[in-house]
């Protein structure tokens, strides 16, 4: 395991999905495919004056077509066919509650901005985002971190497929409210980052408004160790933070070492490709043959002094170059270190070495690409090498499944932002803040012990209720009696039956029927019976009207026992009685009835 360097600085941007519909329209949080789609291209307004944001241009150059799958929770707003509606009041109130909870200072005016993102993940070509509060602090255990800002923004589309220049997205996630909490880079190690991120996530969880699902909490991690800030996007699992940061530390160390070697050899010259389609005549390499068939040219360039640095030992400059090229849609790059391979023989490699007149430490690059893209590719490679050589490794990187990271784009500057003119400036009134103050989320462990002691349930159960999102219904029902029973239903019975039958039982139905039972003083057996019937697909109104929930009285049980021979197995008797009457039975009443009978 890599040691974290002394000068490490770690900051977080935690994004929390708020389960309260969409931020700028009336669509619901969840939706499924609606069976329609449309396609778009995006144009950057590339002639902006002032500091044009290089990341924008980078993405623009990709020249992609985006296909959007319409979801049942999308409307003209997500399709970018209608102006956004007014802001979701619940989402805004939730952001205010979190801000208060973290002692962050709320701004009196919220200005909605457009942040240009033209990778297609937003149909409009921008993400709506607004600064809600400044400053604050979050702590957990021995860790403590300053908050810089809390923002309320829209989530982006969910990527479904990427196929060459055509990317498919779903609209289902687009427009969900995200609360973004950014910390100062004041953490020193991965464990601290994990703890702080966890604390932030739990604070929304406690409100009951954290959306369920895999991507409900996502974090970006900012990291620096002296080579500039790297922003690692899309870390979805907290536990991955350690591995990712360790890998990033190695990468930067190795890169630093490779750069030193390269410089010591005299450094590179500018890469400059020449076309030589004949050089591999007669090759058996399927990769080459196919490329040529597809109209690609063979571009060759010397890479002065680069031998062994592109891929050998721990050195991976080849990958840095390839990742940069991928951003402009160019994939076919080969280099000295990896050959012979891909069907290219040692002899063919020699031909290239000879053709390019390589020196002892020189490497080469082979690009399979149309000649017309030569200059663009050359430019990207040279800029990439120049940046690495400068020792400034700052950039935006994407977290991968295997906990490595890949180059994504240069760091975004402020120059991607301009105001969302379709939405008026939102006034945060004292009344709104007053309202938010009434219900400020407390830390999860505090809440757990509070619930546990208030209702007499275990801490484990209290925690499960919170994570399930069923604390709200629990509190409502528990106020009417028998918290333990209700807890058991919510924590055990329902999750179990949902798992077994692979269904979702709507919470509002559960609520309706528990209410029905409690108002008639029916007990646990009736409630369990109600859940069973719901899980079989009956509607609450059918269940209520059909007298399915009134438990059998002792006298009814006694009467029924007449027709049952074997009076030993009480649960078998119970099953039988349910089968006959379709009503719930309290087993203890059966036992009592049998006993009474036997005493007669």
């Amino acid at each position: 395991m890599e040691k974290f360097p002394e000068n490490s600085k770690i900051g977080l941007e935690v994004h929390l999905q708020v389960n309260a519909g969409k931020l700028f329209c009336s669509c619901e949080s969840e939706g499924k495919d609606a069976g329609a789609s449309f396609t778009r291209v995006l144009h950057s307004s590339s002639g902006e004056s002032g500091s044009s944001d290089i990341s924008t241009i980078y993405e623009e150059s990709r020249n992609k077509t985006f296909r959007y799958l319409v979801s049942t929770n999308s409307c003209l707003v997500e399709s970018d066919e209608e102006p956004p509606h007014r802001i979701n009041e619940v989402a805004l109130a939730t952001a205010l509650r979190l801000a208060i909870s973290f002692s962050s200072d709320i701004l009196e005016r919220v200005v909605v901005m457009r942040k240009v993102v033209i990778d297609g993940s937003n149909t409009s070509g921008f993400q709506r985002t607004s600064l809600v509060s400044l400053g604050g602090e979050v702590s957990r255990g021995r860790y403590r971190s300053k908050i810089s800002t809390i923002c309320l923004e829209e989530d982006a589309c969910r990527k479904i497929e990427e196929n060459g220049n055509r990317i498919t997205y779903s609209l289902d996630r687009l427009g969900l409210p995200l609360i973004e909490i950014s910390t100062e880079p004041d953490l020193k190690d991965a464990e601290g980052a994990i703890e702080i991120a966890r604390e932030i996530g739990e604070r929304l969880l406690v409100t009951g408004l954290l959306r369920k699902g895999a991507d409900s909490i996502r974090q970006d991690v900012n990291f620096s160790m002296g080579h500039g800030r790297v922003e690692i996007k899309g870390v979805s699992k907290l536990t991955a933070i350690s591995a990712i940061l360790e890998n990033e530390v190695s990468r930067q160390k190795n890169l630093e070492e490779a750069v030193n070697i390269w410089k010591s050899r005299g450094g590179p010259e500018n890469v400059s490709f020449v076309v030589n389609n004949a050089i591999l005549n007669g090759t058996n390499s399927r990769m080459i043959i196919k490329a040529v068939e597809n109209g690609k040219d063979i571009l060759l360039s010397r890479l002065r002094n680069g031998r062994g640095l592109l891929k050998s030992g721990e050195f991976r400059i080849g990958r840095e170059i390839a990742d940069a090229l991928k951003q402009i849609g160019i994939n076919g790059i080969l280099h000295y270190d990896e050959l012979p391979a891909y069907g290219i023989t040692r002899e063919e490699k020699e031909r290239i070495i000879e053709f390019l007149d390589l020196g002892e430490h020189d490497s080469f690059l082979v690009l399979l690409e149309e000649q017309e893209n030569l200059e663009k590719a050359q430019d990207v490679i040279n800029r990439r090498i120049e940046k690495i050589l400068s020792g400034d490794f700052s950039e935006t990187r994407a977290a991968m499944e295997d906990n490595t990271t890949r180059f994504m784009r240069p760091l975004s500057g402020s120059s991607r932002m301009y105001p969302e003119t379709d939405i008026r400036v939102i006034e945060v009134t004292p009344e709104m803040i007053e309202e938010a103050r009434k219900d400020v989320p407390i830390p999860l462990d505090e809440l757990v012990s509070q619930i546990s002691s208030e209702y007499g349930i275990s801490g484990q159960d209290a925690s499960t209720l919170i994570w399930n999102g069923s604390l709200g219904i629990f509190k409502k029902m528990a106020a009417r009696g028998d918290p333990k029973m209700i807890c058991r239903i919510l924590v055990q019975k329902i999750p179990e039956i949902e798992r077994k039958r692979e269904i979702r039982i709507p919470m509002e139905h559960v609520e309706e029927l528990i209410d029905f039972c409690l108002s008639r003083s029916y007990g646990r057996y009736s409630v369990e019976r109600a859940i069973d019937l719901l899980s079989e697909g009956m509607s609450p109104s059918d269940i209520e009207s059909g007298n399915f929930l009134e438990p059998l009285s002792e006298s009814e049980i006694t009467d029924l026992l007449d027709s049952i021979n074997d009076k030993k197995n009480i649960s078998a008797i119970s099953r039988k009685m349910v089968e006959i009457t379709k009503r719930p039975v309290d087993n203890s009443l059966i036992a009592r009835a049998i006993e009474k009978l036997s005493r007669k």
Partner: protein
Amino acid sequence: MPENDNLPDGSVIHFTLKGRNLKGTVLGRRDQYLSIKLESGYNIMAIPDKITKIEKGRVSMKVETEYPKESGEGINISVISTGGTIVSKVDYTTGAVFPSLDITEITSRFRYMERSYHIRNVPFLNILSENMEPEQWMNLARKILEESRKSEGIVVSHGTDTMTYTASALSFLFRELSVPVIMVGSQRSSDRPSTDSYLNMEAAINFASTDFGEVGISMHSSISDERISLLRGVRTRKMHSSRRDAFRAIGESPVGYFQEGLVNLSGNYSKKSEKTTMFDRIEKRAGILYFHPGIEIDDLSGYLEKKMGVVIMGTGLGHISTKFIDVLKEYTDSGRIAIMTTQCIYGTTDLDVYTTGRMLSRAGVTWAGNLLPEAALAKMMVVMGNYPEFEWQKRMRSNMRGEIVEREELGVF
């Protein structure tokens, strides 16, 4: 905070807000609030605790929009702008969005555009389209006439709100056209990356190089960035307030399409003529009346007197309450003109079918098949301005520019 009052827009300031030190550019003020763009790019509206430092120099809040007056090589196309923003740009320093006439933003996206078209940029007006007035139709027509001598095709960029009114007016004003006149606009403004203006304009320029001898409209066929329709000006209506595909041909199919760089026209249009000629007068005193239950005779009295002609948007096949028959008879008897259209938008008027229709017809109300209300208004203004009174009714009924679809097929509703 008296110190703020003298801060000019564009000042770069260091200030404290709720105890934190911040830096940003002042963009403006509303009441006591300063609008400040922070270094992070976020705008805030706030009352700083204290301004600690004002940097020297200011960020310019005005953007100079320079653009080439001509560009490209090939067929001459004049692009006349009336205030529709062909290209908007964003100044990311201040976050300001400003219109630009730099048509090369569009043509330079595709090599074929630069090689095929020589674009003449002709700024003409700079207004919101809802402020367009009939006089400006005349002026615009004259400008087109002028440009028709220099170019082989004319593109007119226009706000979408009243684009079909202007398209109709131009259609009737031109007796002959030696150039295609293609109107174009955008439903999503061009300061956003998802704007439809680029594709609409690319198509418009391509349509403007065909033999189409009418006034057309170039807008999205669907919400996808795939196909652009060429629509006949006099038969088109903006049918949705915000969608890209808001412009619909009413009662007929589009004249043609542009897709993947290629134009495909149906053939159902007038070919361009040898020369361009136009009417040179317009009678402004015409208006549209939308009939509805509860409308009273009183409501019309003052109004009708001010108008030489009125377009009625009646119900169904062209009906209004029979209580108006006498008023209308008096009106038409006085040498004025009333034409019936339908508020259904789609479908024909027919005053031969129902009793009310026949009464209206006898009261001198004109009808002309499925002539659209907006086209009727423009037609009326041109007809009244250029023909003797006794011909008005006949002209309104006749099909001058394809504004009446003689055969409505099933698929177009």
